[in-house]
């Protein structure tokens, strides 16, 4: 099959299967995709979905950017300098393993129930995971190629852009994909605990009443956005950057 059609076919197949299973089980814990779509549509029409999704996406965007910038910088530092690694490693492990809940609560308490606290809490949860991934990449850097850059006196920026970064791409893509997913998971908890809008806030409501249909409708909306992002941005970018491997 032409690979361009595989993805849509898989998605349709998935929805179809879901519909069939939903019919067969006829359980309120597995609403049919049609019902979920209906809820989605209704929420879309009355504007709630767009509002909450918009708010959440904004938070995701800001904290994603923050976390990637800080995480990549720290990851490269720790991966390329042994001393920095030794100094920061223990704190990294601590940061990595503090429960999200703790960070969120402390942020809310110290910074108040505001956007700053919310976004910061998410970013803080995310940064260590980016560092861990990128650090591995920086450790695996090919020094022979860096020597080329050094001998020919490339500027720091050129060396970074053309020699260093391309070796990190696989790690960056991994970190970005996982990062988006993790942030989305944490933003929900953050919103559940202390915001008055956003998808997490809505999901909290739905969860309280066990409205799985509503939960799935919001999940679907976010998943569709990520799928679109994959198809229009991440995948083409990755294909472009990996052209030389073919």
């Amino acid at each position, binding site marked *: 099959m032409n690979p361009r059609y595989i993805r849509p076919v898989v998605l349709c197949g998935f929805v179809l299967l879901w519909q069939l299973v939903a019919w067969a089980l006829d359980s*309120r*814990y597995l609403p049919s995709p049609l019902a979920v779509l209906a809820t989605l549509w209704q929420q879309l029409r009355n504007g709630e979905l767009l509002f909450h999704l918009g708010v959440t996406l904004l938070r995701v965007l800001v904290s994603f950017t923050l976390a990637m910038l800080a995480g990549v910088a720290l990851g490269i530092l720790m991966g390329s300098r042994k001393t920095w690694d030794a100094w920061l490693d223990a704190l990294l492990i601590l940061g990595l393993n503090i429960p999200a809940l703790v960070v969120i*609560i402390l942020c*809310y*308490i110290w910074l*108040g*129930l505001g956007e700053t606290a919310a976004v910061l809490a998410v970013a803080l949860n995310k940064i260590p995971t980016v560092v861990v991934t990128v650090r591995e990449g920086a450790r695996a850097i090919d020094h022979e190629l860096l020597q080329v850059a050094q001998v020919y006196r490339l500027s720091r920026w050129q060396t970074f852009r053309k020699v260093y970064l391309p070796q990190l791409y696989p790690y960056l893509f991994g970190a970005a994909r996982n990062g988006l997913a993790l942030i989305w998971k944490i933003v929900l908890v953050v919103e*559940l*605990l*202390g*915001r*008055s809008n956003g998808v997490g*806030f809505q999901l*909290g*409501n739905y*969860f*309280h*009443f*066990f*409205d799985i249909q509503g939960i799935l409708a919001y999940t679907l909306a976010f998943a569709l956005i990520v799928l679109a992002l994959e198809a229009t941005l991440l995948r083409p970018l990755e294909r472009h950057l990996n052209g030389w491997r073919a």
Partner: protein
Amino acid sequence: LEKVRVGVLEFGTVNWEMDTLKYHKLDEQNGIELDIMPLASADASTVALQGGAVDIIVSDWVWVARQRAAGQDYTLFPYSNAVGAVMVKPDSGIKTLADLKGKKLGVAGGPSDKSWLLLRAYAKQTAGLDLQAEAEPQFAAPPLLNELMQRGDLDAVLNFWHYAARLQAAGMQPFITVPDVVKGLGIDSELPLVGWVFSEKWANGHPDIVKGFLSADYAAKQILKESDTEWERLRPRMKAESDTIFTQLRDGFRAGIPICFGDREKQAAANTFKILAETGGETLLGTAKPPLDNQVFWSGFGLPACAE
């Protein structure tokens, strides 16, 4: 002895009662064996009930009404009348509902919380104030709200009774309680909001268990109502930081013990439901619509005090 599995918050108020019940072997005396499943969050208990891991949990009748409308046959028997209160600082200058305008008001339980909806209806009715739009409601987890209130980040907070009790011990004042609100809305009766929730089908299949459990629970309540020594025994469970908090919690609990649940109360619930439906709309009720389904309340048991 027949086993009955009950899901309760490990450190919630319900567990105090269960502890007393177990300690005095009231379950055996009523022909059942109580099996307590401790849980760590309110949502965990609903998951447990729906997943079939427990037979009985504590929840509220709006939740039951909504689940029934969605095809679940849950039913409820009153457990407590104690609900929340709006707490303010003594020097906050908030005297009337109208003073809440533009204030930061912490709300526990989310925008669909019953107390919050009733408060909104009441404010609308008496002060013409739309709290949702004209105050600044902040929805957050109850313990977080308490802390933020004590830090002065909030002007007022609507919280569940045992959290409110702690705030009162910390020097805050109740500005208005939920029973006040209910009364103000013209509902002239005691109104239980939370209760034991179980499947109607299961209850019909095991009427003795339900009866036994509810009787045992009633007996436990009576002990807690009368005996101070019993409370001393429970004290470690309550994690009361001070005597004041301890007393507040004890008295609050006692005040919430339902005395009677008859037609009058059911009517009150139906009226309240109408108000909730108006304020909360579909977000709150889902597919449920007034009038309130009669079967929401379990009729297989009556409180002895109003048997007549």
